């Protein structure tokens, strides 16, 4: 079966800075892959690339069958992908329900999808009518999660999904990830909460200095080989 994500020597520039300096990554459909690495390693950039927000300057990137052309990101890909980033992407002056409704309908979600997403994240009921500006950070995360869920994406890209959430929230994330994979989606997440994330993931990939080391087996990776800074 076609891999969900396939990157070979991908180089992505942010301004003049090579945030990704040669990424090799294979993600099979239906897999849960964990990206880990130090801050500034390029995990967020990698997720954004897979979402179709960034382009490659060198190397190749094929996501969900879309060949990301050099220097132009692909719009068609974005519809099929859901990105949970650091920013909430929510409208402060609308309610939770309004936000989920808007972002869901923008992606073509039906009323049932939206209602289901709200319910799954515990946002139906009283909380649904609260303005986003009045929510706590954790509740905003839940709302963003609901917006993502309503879209029913084939590829989930989660940037530190557990951050800022309480125990219930983290369990919720895990539950949603399992449900998503069960219905055929693929999940790539970046996390610093290694215990929980490694238990969740099928595979761990280490990202450092804009490159990936070969971490095909799950569990704590072996000491990286000295040729980490290899040219792809």
């Amino acid at each position, binding site marked *: 079966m076609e891999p969900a994500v396939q990157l070979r020597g991908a*180089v992505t*520039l*942010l*301004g*003049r*800075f*090579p*945030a990704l*300096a*040669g990424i090799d990554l294979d993600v099979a459909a239906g897999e849960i892959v964990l990206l880990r*690495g*130090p801050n*500034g*390693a390029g995990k967020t950039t990698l997720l954004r690339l897979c979402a179709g927000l960034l*382009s490659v*300057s060198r190397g190749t990137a094929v996501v969900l069958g879309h060949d990301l052309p050099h*220097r132009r990101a692909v719009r068609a890909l974005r519809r099929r992908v859901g990105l949970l980033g650091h920013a909430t992407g929510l409208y402060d002056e609308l309610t939770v329900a309004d936000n989920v409704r808007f972002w869901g309908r923008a992606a073509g979600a039906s009323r049932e999808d939206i209602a289901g997403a709200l319910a799954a994240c515990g946002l139906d009921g009283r909380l649904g009518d609260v303005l986003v500006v009045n929510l706590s950070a954790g509740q905003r995360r839940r709302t963003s999660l609901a917006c993502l869920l309503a879209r029913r994406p084939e590829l989930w890209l989660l940037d530190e999904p557990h951050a800022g959430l309480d125990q219930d929230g983290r369990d919720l994330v895990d539950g949603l990830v399992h449900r998503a994979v069960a219905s055929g989606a693929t999940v790539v997440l970046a996390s610093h909460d290694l215990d929980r994330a490694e238990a969740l993931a099928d595979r761990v990939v*280490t990202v*450092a*200095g*804009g*490159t990936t*080391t070969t971490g095909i087996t799950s569990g*704590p*990776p072996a*000491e*990286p080989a*000295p040729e*980490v*800074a*290899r*040219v792809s």
Partner: protein
Amino acid sequence: MSAPPTRTGSPATRLLGALSLIGLALLLGYALWWSPADAVQKDSVRIMYVHVPTAIVAFASCGITTLASAMWLRRRSEGWWVLGGAAAEVGIVFTGACLVTGSIWGRPTWGTYWDWDPRITSTTLLFILLVGFLALRRVDNESGDPSHRGMRAAVVGLLLFPNVMIVHYSVDWWRSLHQTATITRLDPSIEGTMLFTLMLGIVVFSMVYAWLLVHRFRVGWLEERAGATGLDAALVQRRAEAGVTGGVA
């Protein structure tokens, strides 16, 4: 790559520069001495030999900027980017000169420094359009790779010439209803030596503009070259981070 050039001159520009200087000297002669004074405006008409050429050059400048922006949007090559900015910068100087000379010309002709002559008004708006364009160019765009960062300025540049035209016609139409006389006030009936001087002025100022444009372009080009660090060097540096901090359990 050999040592970077320290001058932006070249045999071609030196020739152009020399011709421009000769042309300017000739123009000075004709403008101030050899061409006759106007019957109505007397000697103050001589400012026209600077004012009209600078106006034409300023408008042409906008055309070049728009063209360069359009080409940049299609090709995304640095050359067009630099050209658009260079044309706007040199153009704004000529626009300023046009406004000042127009204002000075107006004083003896109309009695004031500013009459709502359609040309002066639309040229002032053109000036501000260029200022806005250059201000936008200067603003840093933090994210995005070099082929994206000029998008905003390029769109504004693309719209520059159309805007100039729309504004020009609107203002013209607007003022023509009230001041049919004024439009001709600034245009004395020109013929003979005066016409020749005017044509000479247009040619000379175009040469001066071209000379300035080439040099400004080259300076801009060198700036771009200097700014672009080799990607490979940056890649090596980036990957080295992994060696220092990588493999954290």
